[in-house]
């Protein structure tokens, strides 16, 4: 009970305050439109009417959390049920295909973004680990490549995204791959930096111990360096997976015709429906939280199995 009061209760209070502020801001930000309507209709607004109006507008400047929740349900669960009912009488697989291919279903866009993120993340992480191994084992590579890797973290590489997509499109590569390339290079650099640190983390005493046992280079790598780099790897993976997702979303801004969460946000900003943007944003946030927590859970399990946590 005391753990709850100490750790969970404050978080709940803060979240509740944020939601209350949200509703208050909705009234303030949407009131202009409500007053405007009242003026044109030639009637006076009482405070209750004002609040009721600002919380239920069709195109509000700031939608309320319940409006966003409703939009989320309408564009996911409700769409699936609707599509399923409409294809009544068709063969089962065709119905499934129809539901999965529904372009107005938010879950389809989540899936598009997720697949690009995962493909890029896997490639970026793999290449990052390989480069880190090279840097640790080759002094010339360490001297020449490492400063560039570190510098590249301070420059906005995300700015390259539109160009990569346009160029790849012009040589005939489209769809999932261009987005994944952006995801890959965003997750690549944190992994390189983290892994180099991790592979170098065994201290002189441990390395001497390996020499005492006359361990050769590959034994030192597999039995000492790689296991000690695991905690560093997971820290980088958590940063990398979040960066991958941002990369995929920004990629979708440039090629919006293929769909994805970024495309939904852009579509919302063109037609001026804030609710659509917020729904896509909440979906992206949930996706990020799920991905990071999956990596975090894996980290806990792996570290426990490897004996890092006592």
């Amino acid at each position, binding site marked *: 009970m005391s753990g709850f009061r*100490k*750790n969970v209760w*404050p*978080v*709940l*209070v*803060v*979240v509740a305050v*944020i939601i209350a502020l949200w509703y208050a801001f909705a009234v303030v*930000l949407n009131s202009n439109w409500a007053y405007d309507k009242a003026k044109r209709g030639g009637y006076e607004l009482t405070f209750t009417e004002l609040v009721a109006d600002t919380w239920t507008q069709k195109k509000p*400047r700031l939608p309320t959390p319940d409006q966003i929740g409703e939009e989320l349900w309408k564009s996911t669960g409700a769409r699936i049920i609707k599509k399923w009912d409409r294809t009544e009488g068709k063969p089962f697989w065709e119905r499934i295909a129809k539901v999965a291919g529904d372009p107005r279903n938010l879950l389809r866009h989540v899936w598009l973004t997720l697949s690009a993120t995962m493909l890029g993340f896997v490639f970026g992480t793999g290449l990052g680990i390989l480069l880190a191994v090279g840097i640790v084992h080759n*002094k*010339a590579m*360490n*001297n*020449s*490549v*490492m*400063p*560039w890797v570190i*510098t590249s*973290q*301070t*420059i*906005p590489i*995300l*700015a*390259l995204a*539109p*160009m990569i*997509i*346009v*160029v790849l499109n*012009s*040589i005939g590569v489209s769809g999932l791959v261009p987005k994944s390339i952006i995801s890959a290079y965003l997750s690549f650099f944190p992994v390189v930096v983290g892994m180099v640190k991790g592979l170098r983390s065994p201290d002189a005493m441990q390395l001497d111990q390996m020499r005492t046992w006359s361990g050769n280079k590959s034994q030192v790598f597999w039995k000492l360096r790689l296991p000690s780099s695991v905690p560093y790897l997971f820290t980088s993976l*958590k940063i990398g997976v*979040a960066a991958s*997702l*941002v990369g995929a*979303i*920004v990629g979708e*801004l*440039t090629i919006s015709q293929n769909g994805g*969460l*970024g495309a939904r*946000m*852009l579509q*919302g*900003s063109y037609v*001026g429906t*804030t609710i659509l*943007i*917020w729904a*896509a*944003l909440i979906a*992206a*946030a949930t996706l*990020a*939280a799920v991905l*990071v927590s999956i990596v975090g859970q894996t980290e806990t399990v792996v570290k426990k199995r490897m004996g890092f946590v006592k």
Partner: protein
Amino acid sequence: MMLVIAALFVWAIGWGINIWIARQKPGRWQSIVSAAIFGITLILMWELIVRGLEVSPVILPPPSMIFHAFVTNKMTLLLDFYQTFVWGALTGYAIGCSAAFLTALAIDRSDFLKRGLLPVGNFVAALPIIGMAPILVMWFGFGWESKAAVVVIMIFFPMLVNTVQGLSATDSIQNDMMRTYSATYWQSMFKMRLIAAAPFIFNGLKISSTLALIGAIVAEFFGSPIFGMGFRISTGAGRLELDLVWAEIVVAAIAGSAFYGLVALGERAATFWHPSMRKQR
């Protein structure tokens, strides 16, 4: 074809020099020279291969063309830099960092708020906040104000979390000593806790400096006046003026690393006492 062979030759020479340097006695110059040679080798190979294979400039322009675009479009680039970096990124950076710092000071006295805000802050810091950009562009218009707003929201939580962590960096013995001297809250804040927090605060400032430029550029993809770095990059890519896009990326790279470098210099000056800043043997 000759040029491609020349490129491979340049690679061999560059790599050979670097291997030779790596075998020399270690020194400070080693890494700098080595990195410079690697960079020059890459640029030369880029130039030679693009020319040798006759790659169309709408796919990958050679470095000489990018340099030419950089020189001929100086005024455009300067205007874009001013709009995006000075107005968008720097204003947002100043507002966001000071707001987060003041919030951290405000919640410092309440243990309850710290317990409540820190998990929320950590959670928000991991979210793709850049998605807020279209909403903020709608609220604040196409001008630099919306870009600054995106930057403020992006950097607020990383900065807050770091500052709060820094303010709890002093341990109870140090706090007790200040109490023994009968120091007031603000005395112990200014004379001890803020100084102890400096490494954490600078960490937040460094993270924010990279985020600020990214935020300002990406926010321009959602709508901007007809200048600005993000605008130039997205429309330039659409119109296949890739030399101009690359020139803009060069500006972004220089601005980003210079900004980071300045913050790092400030850190060196302010936290010279910290073990990580002492001269390495």
